[in-house]
C-alpha cells in the first residue's frame, strides 16, 4: 500500500508540473492571443474588455490558481474559435483517439512479443535475422510516411480499404474496423518494432541466467523451461518499456490522425495549433498528459504486482 501511495504522490507532483507548463503555453508564446484574435479590426476598448473578461489582465499567479481550480472541477475554459466549452470538445473527441490508440497498442504487443521471443530463442537463425532487419526498418520509419504508403497501396491501388474517416464502433463495428486498421498499423509499427527489440534482448539476457541453467539441470522439457523460466522472467522488465511505448503511441496518434483525417484528440490539437486556439490547446495537452500519467501509474503498479521482489506493502 505504501508503494501505491508513493507512486500516487509522485504522479501528483508531475501533474502539478504539467499544469504549470500548460499554463505557461499561453504566456510564453510570442504575441497576445486576444490581439491576434482581433486581427486587423483592433479596437483598444474591446481589447481591454476582452482581456478583463478572459482574466488576462490579472497577475499570472492569480490566473494560474484560477485556471487550476477551474480545471479540477472540469472547467477548462472556452474555445476561442468555436465558443464551446473545451471540456465538451475534448470529451467528444476522446473515443476516437482511445479506440485508435488501443488498436495500435494491441497490434504492437501482438507482433512484438511473439517475434521478440522467437528471435531470441532462435538466436542467430534466419528467422532472427529477418526479425532484426524488419524491426530495425520499423524503428526508422516515420509513421506519417508509412501511413501514406498504406493509403496508396490499400486504398488508391487495391481499393480494399477506405483511405480515411471514422465511424464510431458503437454505430457500425465492421465499418469501424475497416477504417481503424490502417491508422492502427501505422501507430503500432514503430512501437511494435522497438518493443520487439526489447523483448528479444530481454529474453536473450534471461536465457543466460543461472536460474535457467538450474531449470535445465532439472531436466524440464525445453518448452517448459522457456515458458516458465525464461519468457515469464524476461517480460517483467519489458512491462516498463511497454508503458513508455504506450505513451509514445499517444504522441504518434497526433500525426497519424492528421494523415487519416481521424477526428480524435490529435486532429483537435493540430487544428487548435493552427487556429491559435490556446484554451483548447491547453485542455488537450493537459488531457493527454493526464492519460500518460495514468497509463504509467498502471504500468508501474502492474510491474510491482508481477515481480514478487517489489513488495507493495514494503519500502518502495
Amino acid at each position, binding site marked *: 500500500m505504501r508503494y501505491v501511495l508513493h507512486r500516487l504522490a509522485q504522479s501528483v507532483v508531475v501533474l502539478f508540473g504539467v499544469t504549470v507548463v500548460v499554463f505557461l503555453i499561453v504566456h510564453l508564446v510570442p504575441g497576445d492571443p486576444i490581439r491576434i484574435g482581433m486581427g486587423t479590426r483592433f479596437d483598444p476598448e474591446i481589447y481591454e474588455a476582452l482581456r478583463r473578461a478572459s482574466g488576462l489582465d490579472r497577475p499570472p499567479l492569480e490566473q494560474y490558481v484560477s485556471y487550476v481550480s477551474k480545471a479540477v472541477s472540469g472547467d477548462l475554459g472556452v474555445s476561442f474559435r468555436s465558443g464551446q466549452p473545451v471540456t465538451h470538445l475534448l470529451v467528444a473527441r476522446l473515443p476516437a483517439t482511445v479506440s485508435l490508440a488501443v488498436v495500435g497498442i494491441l497490434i504492437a504487443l501482438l507482433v512484438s512479443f511473439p517475434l521478440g521471443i522467437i528471435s531470441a530463442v532462435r538466436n542467430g537463425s534466419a528467422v532472427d535475422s529477418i526479425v532484426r532487419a524488419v524491426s530495425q526498418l520499423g524503428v526508422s520509419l516515420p509513421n506519417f510516411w508509412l501511413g501514406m504508403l498504406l493509403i496508396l497501396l490499400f486504398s488508391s491501388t487495391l481499393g480494399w480499404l477506405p483511405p480515411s474517416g471514422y465511424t464510431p464502433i458503437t454505430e457500425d463495428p465492421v465499418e469501424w474496423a475497416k477504417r481503424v486498421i490502417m491508422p492502427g498499423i501505422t501507430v503500432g509499427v514503430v512501437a511494435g518494432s522497438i518493443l520487439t527489440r526489447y523483448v528479444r534482448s530481454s529474453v536473450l539476457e534471461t536465457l543466460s*541466467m*543461472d*536460474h535457467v*541453467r*538450474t*531449470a*535445465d*539441470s*532439472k*531436466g*524440464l*522439457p*525445453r518448452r*517448459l523451461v522457456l515458458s*516458465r*523460466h525464461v519468457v*515469464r*522472467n524476461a517480460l*517483467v522488465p519489458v512491462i516498463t518499456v511497454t508503458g513508455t511505448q504506450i505513451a509514445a503511441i499517444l504522441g504518434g496518434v497526433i500525426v497519424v490522425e492528421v494523415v487519416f483525417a481521424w477526428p480524435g484528440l490529435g486532429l483537435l490539437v493540430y487544428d487548435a495549433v493552427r487556429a491559435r486556439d490556446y484554451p483548447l490547446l491547453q485542455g488537450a495537452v493537459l488531457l493527454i498528459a493526464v492519460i500518460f500519467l495514468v497509463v504509467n501509474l498502471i504500468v508501474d503498479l502492474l510491474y510491482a504486482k508481477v*515481480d*514478487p*521482489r517489489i513488495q507493495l506493502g514494503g519500502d518502495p
Partner: protein
Amino acid sequence: MSALPGPPSPSAVPVSATALEVRSLSVSIGTARIVRDVSWSVSPGQTLGIVGESGSGKSMSVLSAVGLGPGNARVTGDVRLTTSDGTEHDLLGLRGNALRRIRGRRIGFVFQDPATSLNPMLTVERQLTEGPEVHLGLKPREARARAAELLELVGIPDPARRLKAYPHELSGGMRQRVMIAVALACEPEVIIADEATTALDVTIQAQIIDAIRELQERLGTATVWISHDLAVVGGIADEVVVMYGGEVLERAETVRLFQDTVHPYTRGLFASRPHLGQRSDQLLSIPGSPPDPRAIPPGCVFWDRCSVRGDDRCRTQHPELVDLGDGHWVRSFYLPDARPPSAEPATRDQEGER
C-alpha cells in the same frame, strides 16, 4: 572403466559399482581445447572431489558430460551413467529430451550461488514440485506434499510456510538448502555440486557440507564435488581429481593425496592455503596464470608456473598420466625416486594423446 588404456583401473571396482563414469572426455569450443582427456568415476555412496583453480576446466568437464555445457561446445569421450536398477546410459549419445529425462531424475545439481540459481519469480514450492511432476508424474497435491518432505529433509523448519516463500525472502544458507532439496527431489543416483558452498559464509558452508554428507549417507547417492578449495574437498571426498589447464594432473584417494602429494601443482595448492597466525602478506601463491586454451603449450601445461621445471623435457614433451600404484595417478616427469614410473607410459609421451 579404466581411465586410460593399458594400466588397471585406479579404484579397481567392478563396472556395476560405478554410478557415473567419465572416460577420455574432451571439450573444445572453436580452437579452444578447454578440457583434454579427463577420466574419473564415482560409485554409489562415494564422493569424488574435483579441484582446480578457475579456468582449470573442472566445471566445464562435468557440466559438458551431462549436456549442460555451452551449446557450441564439442564434447568427445564416453560418459556412462548406471542407474540403481542396473541400466547403463550412454549420456553423450543422448540428445535433447532423452537427456532431459536423465537430468533432474538421475542426476541432481547444486550450483554455486543460491541467490541467482533459484528463479526469483517463482515460489519455493513451484521450484520444488516441477521436477517430480515432470519426471515422476506426481499430481500437484502429491508434489506439494513431497516438497514439504524435502524441505524437512534438508533441515528447513516450518516447511509449510517456506513453500509459499520466494527465494529473496530466504537467507543464503536457506536458499542453498532449497537448492539441495531441488537436487534431491527425484531421488537421483548422482548429485553434482558445483562450488556449492563457495558463495556462502564459512559457518553456513560447514552446515551445507554436513547436510549434503548426511543425506548422501542416508540415500546412498554418489556425489561429484567441484571446488577450488582443497580443504573443502579434502573434508568430504573419498577420491580427489586435481585439474589444471584442462587436464588431470593428479588423482588419488583423499588420504593418499594429502599424505603423499606428488605433483608440484598439488603441492602448490597445499602451500597456498592460509594457516592460522599467518598474515595476509605472507600468503603463498603460485605465480602466473593457467594456459590459454586456444594455445596449449606442447609440453607440460604447468611448465611455466612449476617450481621444479626440471629439464627441457618439461617444456617440449607432454607428460602422460602415470599410475604410481593403488590408484594414485600423476602427470609429471618428476616422480618420487622410490616409485619410478613404469617405462611403458613414459615412452608414449612424445606424442601425448593430443
